[in-house]
């Protein structure tokens, strides 16, 4: 029999025992729904958490340092020094890294000691530069005031503890001015009679620098609760932030500059942060940067174990969801076996009219398939609704706790497709036994049956 005829006859037969088939289909629907609801919550939770982690800026960033950075404190390592020259992390390296595929931006870590004066009271603080991309980070979600108006504006964002030090009512600081006093690095010209390049210059000349006190007025534009990006590779411990380009322009003496003062090589960065287009690209970018001859660090491995934890959670949820579907598939077996008993005579007639065993088998198979498909579609809809309802309930609770609403539920297209496919497969497997039993029916006996 052709496929069209098969499905036509199958759906016709299904309509005939309407109530029973609707109940069976509903059973599959509920099974699929529980599967979809469970998995949509698992996936949603994963998306929520990994989304939040990604916004910390920790997982899509590769931290780059020169090989020398940790190697030459104390005694130099003999083997390494002999093997290959160590590449300096200079401006040329920064440009090269910025040119790699999937690299969004490369920025240096700039932190320097400075004296801050507010209403003439001086305070020694560490000031850190913030890249423009930090704007998207989660810590700035609850900012009082605003983020920097531009990447090089004479503006500052304070951490709230420090702001409290300055003023009892920290919010009143917004819009006020702060004086930043710092030590500027001024490169020296080559001494008279010296050759064009200093003896150990690897790229560009550096004849040392002089240190000059400077002052800049900064407008306080924002106050944040928590310190953005503390810990490794973040912005170090700091409570005063200025735009990164401003920090570069100020050219203040940094903590690591003492070593620079003793060398005549071109200025080097202590470390660079490389932001990658997505967390998934981190290992590839990391590998490329390593090939360029630098040390790299990332939290990608930490993210990997997080993904593993979610995979385990998802399979647990999926297993519980599938259990309901397994029970529903028994409903299909039951319904179809009942249908065989009821339709014995019909099967006999079909065979007398020329139906082969295969035709009969396929007919029952098609009926199981139609129920599975309808149940799958129904179940996805139902599961979607259940997921939404749970999400809604949780948000009502979050609102009562005065927390911001969250989406902890997601139905990606692959979940829709695989849930329906799964329902269809389970139904077909459930139809195997009834179908072969129907096909084996002896037509002579079946026709005699009243």
């Amino acid at each position, binding site marked *: 029999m*052709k496929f069209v*005829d098969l499905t036509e006859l199958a759906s*016709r037969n299904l309509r*005939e025992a309407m109530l029973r088939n609707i109940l069976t289909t509903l059973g599959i629907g509920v099974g699929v729904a529980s599967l979809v609801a469970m998995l949509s919550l698992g996936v949603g939770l994963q998306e929520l958490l990994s989304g939040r982690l990604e916004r910390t800026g920790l997982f899509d960033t590769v931290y780059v340092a020169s090989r020398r950075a940790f190697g030459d404190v104390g005694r130099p390592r003999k083997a390494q020094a002999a093997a290959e020259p160590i590449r300096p992390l200079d401006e040329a390296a920064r440009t090269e890294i910025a040119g790699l595929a999937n690299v969004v931006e490369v920025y240096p870590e700039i932190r320097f000691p400075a004296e801050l004066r507010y209403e003439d009271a001086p305070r020694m603080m560490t000031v850190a530069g913030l890249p423009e991309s930090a704007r998207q980070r989660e810590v700035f979600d609850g900012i009082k005031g605003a983020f920097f108006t531009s990447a090089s504006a004479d503006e500052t964002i304070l951490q709230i503890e420090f702001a409290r030090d300055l003023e009892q009512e920290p919010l009143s600081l917004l819009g006020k001015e702060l004086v930043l006093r710092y030590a500027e690095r001024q490169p020296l010209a080559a001494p008279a009679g010296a050759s064009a390049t200093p003896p150990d210059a690897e790229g560009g000349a550096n004849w040392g620098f002089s240190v000059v006190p400077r002052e800049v007025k900064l407008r306080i534009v924002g106050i944040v609760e928590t310190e953005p990006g503390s810990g490794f590779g973040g912005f170090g411990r700091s409570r005063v932030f200025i735009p990164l380009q401003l920090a570069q322009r100020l050219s203040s003496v940094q903590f690591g500059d003492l070593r620079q003062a003793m060398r005549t090589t071109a200025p080097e960065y202590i470390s660079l942060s490389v932001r990658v287009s997505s967390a998934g690209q981190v290992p590839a970018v990391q590998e490329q940067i390593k090939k360029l001859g630098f040390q790299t660090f990332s939290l990608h491995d930490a993210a990997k174990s997080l993904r593993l934890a979610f995979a385990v959670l998802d399979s647990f949820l999926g297993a519980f969801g599938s259990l309901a579907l397994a029970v529903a598939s028994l409903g299909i077996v039951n319904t179809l076996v009942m249908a065989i008993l009821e339709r014995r005579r019909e099967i006999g007639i*079909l*065979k007398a*009219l020329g139906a082969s065993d295969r*035709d009969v088998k396929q007919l029952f198979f098609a009926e199981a398939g139609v129920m599975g498909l309808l149940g799958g579609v129904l179940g996805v809809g139902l599961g979607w609704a259940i997921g939404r309802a749970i999400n809604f309930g949780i948000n009502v609770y979050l609102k009562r706790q005065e927390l911001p609403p969250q989406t902890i539920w997601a139905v990606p297209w692959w979940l829709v497709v695989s849930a329906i496919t799964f329902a269809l497969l389970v139904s077909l497997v459930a139809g195997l036994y009834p179908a072969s039993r129907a096909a084996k029916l002896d*037509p002579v006996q079946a026709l005699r049956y009243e």
Partner: protein
Amino acid sequence: MTKSPLGPRKILQPDGCGARSSMFGATVSSEQPNSTAIRTAGVSRHYTMGESVIRAVDGVSLEVRSGEFVALLGSSGSGKSTLLNLIAGLDRPSAGAIYAHGRDLAQMSPLELAKHRSRTVGMVFQSFNLLPRMSLAENVELPLRLAEVDRRERPGRVREALERVRLSARMDHRPSELSGGEQQRAAIARALVNRPTILLADEPTGNLDSHTGEEILNLIAEINGSLGMTVVMVTHERPLAERYAQRQIFLADGKLVGGNGEP
């Protein structure tokens, strides 16, 4: 007998297949008077019930010529229906051979046997066996679906078959809305729709009053005459068999009675 009181008939068109086209001409039987439609050679069908063996059909050899109308007679339990089921390919013999147009059914694979039921024979039953939830047209279409006949061709074939049994006006009715005679006519249309060469009827008048029964037999005789279809009819009503069939074959206890197995 072939003269029908029901007026001129439309003749089904030949379908281009050589062996079959001959079956649809009005003068088929005279063209090939000696070709054999069905031949059984020592065919037996035994059932085991516990310890005892029931010989429903026991070494029957007979021959039915193309275009012949044969009645299988016998009391109940004589094995006539079992023999008919064997010829229909619904059952397989325990021993012996059954040839339909020269091909042995006993040697056929299940799929070939299904094809035989679909293309070579059409069956009519005592209890009509129409599917109650389908309209007449859908019931008649069923063999076409099973034979994978092109969808565009089907409505015409269904109409043609229903016209032949004079039911085209009721093609959208369900079987329960029809009288017994009409239901049996619909069943005959269903048996004809695939243009088989052999019509097998198992007590076709058994559930009908005598007047309606005669009507049905007239129709079968007409089909036998105008289409040249071979007809094997199982019945226990000897007077009807004598009136309509060209030859009667008697069975008792699964064996032929008298030497009338040969034409």
